[in-house]
């Protein structure tokens, strides 16, 4: 009996030491990964300075016309840093990007929209210019402000619009298995509830993780999503590189 008890205690000790070893190994792996990301961050920062100073030639000629609509997703707690947002928008204006959608989950940017529009000379709200589902071709920069309520909640509101139209149409006796709503009807319904807008070609995420934080799902089918890191360490060179890489992408759209 003593032998069995001692064996059990020994196994217990072995398990605890084993657990300790596993935890230490796990922590060591994460420390190494963090060091790798730190080194990569330093290398990217150096590269972005080279791009800003015009030393890397291939980034000099940017085919910005390919980027018809750009979305920027910002962490809500960083969205209060309106000076950083304005600086980013000014960089985009300098590069020639005309149409930008600013998104943060909690709608902080929506609250600052008047201030942002005032600080950016000549910029107007996108909704004023967006007609017939086409992105307008104009010299002024247009800004759209979106939040989480323009995503799932807007789809629910649009669904109610479609439902009302469906009831009024009197087509409720049709075959229940046939599609009764089309994508273009949904797009119109979203516009009716104030959450219509074009699909961005490129979405830049300024935050700790590569995660779109609830950007309206209906508008993101083929959007390229690039993670730019935290807003506080944003760099002009990284922005140029992201836009350049986008212009090099070739999509098949399922074909």
């Amino acid at each position, binding site marked *: 009996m003593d032998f069995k008890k001692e064996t059990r205690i020994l196994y217990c000790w072995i398990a605890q030491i084993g657990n300790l070893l596993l935890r230490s190994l*796990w922590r060591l792996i994460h420390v190494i990964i963090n060091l790798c990301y730190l080194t990569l961050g330093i290398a990217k920062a150096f590269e972005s300075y080279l791009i800003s100073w015009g030393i890397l030639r291939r980034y000099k000629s940017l085919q910005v016309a390919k980027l018809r609509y750009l979305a920027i997703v910002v962490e809500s707690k960083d969205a209060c840093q309106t000076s950083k947002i304005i600086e980013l928008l000014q960089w985009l204006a300098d590069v020639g990007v005309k149409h930008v959608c600013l998104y943060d989950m909690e709608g902080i940017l929506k609250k600052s929209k008047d201030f942002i529009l005032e600080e950016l000379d000549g910029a107007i709200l996108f909704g004023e210019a967006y007609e017939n589902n086409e992105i307008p071709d104009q010299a002024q920069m247009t800004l759209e402000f979106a939040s989480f309520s323009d995503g799932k909640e807007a789809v629910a509101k649009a669904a109610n619009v479609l439902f009302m139209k469906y009831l009024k149409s009197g087509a409720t006796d049709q075959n229940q298995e046939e599609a009764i709503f089309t994508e273009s009807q949904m797009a119109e319904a979203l516009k009716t509830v104030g959450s219509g807008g074009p699909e961005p070609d490129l979405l830049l995420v300024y935050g700790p993780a590569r995660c779109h934080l609830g950007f309206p799902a209906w508008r993101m*089918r083929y959007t390229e999503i*690039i993670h730019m890191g935290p807003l506080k360490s944003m760099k002009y060179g990284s922005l140029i590189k992201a836009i350049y890489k986008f212009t090099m992408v070739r999509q098949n759209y399922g074909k």
Partner: protein
Amino acid sequence: MTLHMEKGGISRSARRSLWKLSYLQRKCIFSVLSVGRLPIHIAFIMDGNRRYGEQRNLKEGAGHKAGYLALMLMVIYCCELGIKYITAYAFSIDNFKRGPDKVQYIMDLMLEKIELELSKKDSLFSRYGVKVHFSGNMELLSDPIKDAAKRLMVATANNSNTLLTVCFAYTSRNEILHAIQETCQEKLAQIQLQESISEGRISMCNPGQGNDVLKLADIEKHMYMAIAPDPDIIIRTSGENRLSNFLLWQSANSCLISFSQLWPGISCWHLVWAVLNFQRNHYYLEKKKKKQI
């Protein structure tokens, strides 16, 4: 273990020994990974099958066969790691735009693989306790495939370790529209029932007046992907950085990871890297999820 072993002419016993060795190696690695929080749901965009075949001068369609093997291996690795939900983007509605012979090849391959799994007594799904579910607009598929998919779902219905959702004839927009349609029809049936009880004295409220008839929760329960929680990680291969109409509704707080490797070349190490990245960002993503609720 990779697909290269399939071609090397290695003997069966040597393959078994190599598999056992790699299993022990994975067990050690997964024990370390399990110290941290593991994802509950991983989704895969299996991009690059055609290019894989073209790069290796394989015959038409061989890339997709290699892609199927890679998926099965990935399912095994996820089961060993203890992942409860796996979703794979097998065929998009947009893929119907491809040439009819290419579409037909994929349909034939899907049918062949389903029949193969159904015919085995000890299939991979029963060995690992994987329940298979097909998500998508099945009405776009031919009757033989619809029937085979239903049979596979029934055959694996009692497995409970892991749920593998195969998105076939799927796009997010179609999913959203389908969910709205189902919700409308459900609501219409309720209204008609209430009207017949109250003899037509119900009045409809207009939306946008704080009294929407269709609620967000109603729409969400009719989504094809309502059977699984939102994915923790979405992995895309072949170096592309877009979701291509996949899980757009469910991916608000998902860690999006892109590998330059083509899908048939994906290995256990890619999965390990994805989980390590998830663990790095887990605390932040959990905070975001709680804020949404």
